[in-house]
């Protein structure tokens, strides 16, 4: 069984919890729908966003150079990291230079991708995730299970227990308001103690050399605006040409993510505060290579809203951790194989190819088509598991030859009808697991058609 299947099987063992997870995410999807429906120009906005990203990708080198030039004019220190290791090394050097011991970090999928926390902790630097959901999973020593709702898989009672142990809250109290207030007090101290703040970046503006960060909690701003050193980690694909393009993307992002008309805070950083420093680390880590793959380059348009996860029937019922990758869900399933085809060859199969992900994507990434294309790549690279490759070979042979096809059809129909259950519903037939096979018709369509015509 593939890793995704195994992990999903564990997840769905608890049926009530699976339904709860499914329902919670579907509610977010519905909020997105309501929000999108309020804008008559929603589809034009998606189209515009997709075209802007097309333009960005087709002139990415130019925009990145322009971004760096403008940022430098603003006194910002710009770094380039070819991969995760270089990224961590650069940050390590900046921190060393400033003698940093304590860091507050706001949500950044890029630093997750680069495993920055592990790197810094191994150097005895305290790094505190300040988004509430991220803080919860950090205390649990877990990875986020969703890119916008990192702790969506955790129940409030579990948070209550965790906070009782870690923050000394009342035993048995799992009221979300009470727990959030406790985290607020805990994090306020961390913000003011911190020697440095690290954030991800939602958008980098080539024209002005600034970065834009969107949050609801205000944690990125609490960090950056109190620590004497701020570091922003940005993937190369986050660039937008001009400030006016923010109009399109800020309108789409929060509506797609949570159904809000805007995140509570949309912050624009261009220069450091007096007596402090601002750094931007531009990270490639496989993105420029992905740019060269015509079938897959559109995945670089992603703005990390999570809408494809909330709508995905597989994601909702298997949980983010089943994807065993930094970014889960449909978008993760097309981004991860580019990072490591062997390790993530199961993910493009974690989909029904229903296309709902592509329908809700605010930048119109053809996610389900790319999932299908990755399956072909995986086949070509001999990365298919035997449970898939053998039946496929067999099926190809059957479909190649009409008389074999006719014969196999006949056998299959009568097998389902006449064989004892144990012969059909067993380990070898994954299609008979937790579901009944359809009732087999007495005749094939061809036979039925022939008989009809003869009447």
């Amino acid at each position: 069984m593939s890793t995704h299947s195994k992990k999903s099987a564990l997840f769905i063992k608890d049926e009530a919890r699976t339904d709860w997870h499914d329902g919670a995410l579907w509610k977010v999807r519905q909020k997105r729908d309501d929000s999108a429906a309020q804008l008559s120009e929603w589809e034009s906005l998606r189209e515009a966003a997709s075209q802007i990203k097309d333009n960005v990708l087709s002139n990415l080198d130019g925009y990145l150079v322009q971004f760096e030039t403008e940022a430098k004019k603003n006194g910002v220190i710009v770094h380039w990291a070819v991969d995760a290791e270089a990224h961590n090394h650069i940050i390590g050097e900046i921190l060393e230079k400033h003698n940093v011991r304590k860091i507050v970090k706001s949500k950044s999928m890029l630093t997750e991708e680069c495993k920055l926390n592990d790197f810094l902790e191994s150097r005895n630097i305290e790094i505190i995730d300040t988004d509430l959901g991220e803080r919860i999973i950090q205390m649990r020593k877990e990875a986020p299970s969703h890119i916008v709702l990192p702790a969506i898989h955790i129940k409030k009672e579990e948070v209550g227990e965790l906070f009782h142990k870690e923050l000394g809250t009342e035993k048995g109290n799992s009221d979300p308001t009470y727990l959030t207030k406790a985290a607020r007090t805990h994090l306020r101290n961390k913000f003011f103690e911190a020697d440095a703040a690290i954030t991800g970046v939602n958008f980098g503006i080539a024209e002005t050399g600034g970065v834009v960060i969107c949050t609801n909690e205000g944690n990125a701003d609490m960090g950056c605006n109190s620590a004497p050193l701020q570091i922003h980690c940005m993937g190369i694909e986050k660039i937008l040409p001009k400030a006016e393009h923010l109009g399109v993307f800020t309108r789409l992002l929060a509506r797609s993510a949570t159904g809000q008309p805007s995140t509570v805070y949309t912050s624009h950083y261009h220069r450091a505060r007096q007596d402090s420093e601002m750094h931007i680390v531009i990270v490639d880590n496989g993105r420029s290579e992905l740019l060269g793959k015509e079938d897959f380059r559109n995945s670089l348009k992603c703005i990390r809203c999570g809408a494809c996860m909330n709508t995905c029937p597989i994601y909702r019922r298997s949980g983010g951790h089943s994807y065993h990758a930094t970014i889960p869900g449909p978008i993760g399933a097309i981004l991860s194989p580019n990072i490591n085809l062997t390790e993530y060859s199961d993910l493009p199969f974690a989909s029904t190819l229903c296309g709902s992900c592509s329908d809700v994507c605010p930048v119109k990434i053809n996610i389900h088509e790319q999932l299908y294309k990755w399956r072909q790549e995986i086949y070509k690279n001999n990365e298919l598991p035997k449970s898939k490759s053998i039946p496929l070979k067999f099926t190809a042979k059957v479909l190649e030859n009409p008389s074999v096809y006719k014969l196999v059809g006949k056998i299959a129909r009568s097998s389902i009808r006449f064989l004892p259950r144990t012969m059909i519903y067993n380990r070898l037939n994954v299609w008979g697991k937790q579901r009944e096979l359809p009732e087999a018709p007495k005749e094939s369509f061809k036979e039925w058609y022939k008989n009809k015509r003869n009447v």
Partner: protein
Amino acid sequence: MCKSAILERIRKNKPELIPLPDLSVFHHNISETDLIKDFIRVSTESKSKVINIMNIEIQLGTYLKEFITKNYPSATIFYDALNPKENLDGIDFNSEPVDLFIAESKLGVAENGCLWFDENILKQRISSFACQHTLLIIDHKNLVPTMHQAYQKLKIEETGYGVFIAGPSKTADIEQSLVIGAQGALSNTIILI
């Protein structure tokens, strides 16, 4: 070394130049009445309290004084960005809990309730986040329909930092239950003048 390697690979791999789309299609002609109606509705939905004093003939300062006494009775420390004489740089958020942040935005967005604040208004960047409560003032004449018009009017790089604020800080990270007052302000009140 990293830089040239990245740029080189991008040059090699990027597709042919694709032009930018025309954004003038997102032009909105909305009456002033509807702008105000939208702004109040969306801001309220985003958990801000909106007080409309557009039609009341009273001096803002006088109104605010009364309003604050009545609504924030226990507030003692203020960050008053309306008052140019205040020494705002001297306030240390680390050592004392500041109760109330007061400032006027010069640009508001009707579709999502965003109000723009840059360093010229804020002085200290952390002020609106570190204060317990925020009291924001916006003149109805400074409302625009959508983010497109907002970014046309703005020069985002004019100061080192600028932020759109659309409500009190919030989170739904514990079982999707909405909690007002996460890391930033615990409540947000908007006075529409």
